[in-house]
């Protein structure tokens, strides 16, 4: 059964690119439009990996990661940040919140899927 990835980003075009790239690599994709939507969808179905943007209206990426790590079934699910932010301070905050990795936009589909395969197969 295909592994499922939750892709959280307030940009519709970015979600479209992510879904296209991940589905082409054989993954199922659930899209969420912001942190709160992502959290709600994560509660409804435990996914195999979470990809989240940082700067979103309402709940941002760091807050989403903290909320997910507070859920029993998301203690060990890999969570990757995919964001335009590249500062070391932000990366440190991401790591402290429980992110497993930090990817700076724009993403390359081949590199993205390579990283994801390393994490969830």
């Amino acid at each position, binding site marked *: 059964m295909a592994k499922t990835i939750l892709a959280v980003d307030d940009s519709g075009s970015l979600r479209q690119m992510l879904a296209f790239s991940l589905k082409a690599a054989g993954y199922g994709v659930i899209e969420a439009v912001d942190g709160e939507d992502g959290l709600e969808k994560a509660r409804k179905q435990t996914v195999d990996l979470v990809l989240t943007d940082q700067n979103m209206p309402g709940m941002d990426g760091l807050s989403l990661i903290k909320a997910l790590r507070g859920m029993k079934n998301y203690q060990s699910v890999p969570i990757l940040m995919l964001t335009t932010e590249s500062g070391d301070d932000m990366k440190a905050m991401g790591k402290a919140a429980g992110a497993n990795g*930090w990817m700076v936009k724009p993403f390359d589909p081949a590199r993205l899927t390579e990283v994801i395969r390393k994490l969830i197969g």
Partner: protein
Amino acid sequence: MNAQVVRLLSGVSVHGDQHLAEVERDLVQMDGLLDEAIKKLCASFMAIHHVVDQQQDALNGLLAGGMPATECSARFEMLRGEINQHVGAAVTGLQFQDMTSQLIGRMVQHLAGLRDVFDALGTNAPTLPESSNESLLHALNHISERVGACCNELAGSVRSTVNQRHMESGDIELF
């Protein structure tokens, strides 16, 4: 008194300049990103078109019986790999919309801030009294403080979140 007026006007000028400088910076960055994105997308489009042409040639060769099936199959696989590569490059280029959208959002906030600066001087400013220098000074100080407060408030909330100058794929770091 004149010094106070000059100070007020300088404050407005400095704060206004700061907002405009940020808007200018973001516009230049956006221009660069859009230019690169379009160039990459054009290159991807042309490359995909070229490979599709080659696919058609290979298909014609297969239909004409001029190439063994196994050789054709290998060729088609190779061409598919090339198409995937070019599509991947296009996907990277297409992400310009997300970045430019963030830059535009930031510019809109700075322009709103600029409007607040002028607003502090405009209809919401206290009526400047005509009679006493002290009252006038007090009113000018109040305006100056409001202008400063507007800008401090905005400065704290409008961070630069898009540092990319080129449409190259970003770093990946696993913790």
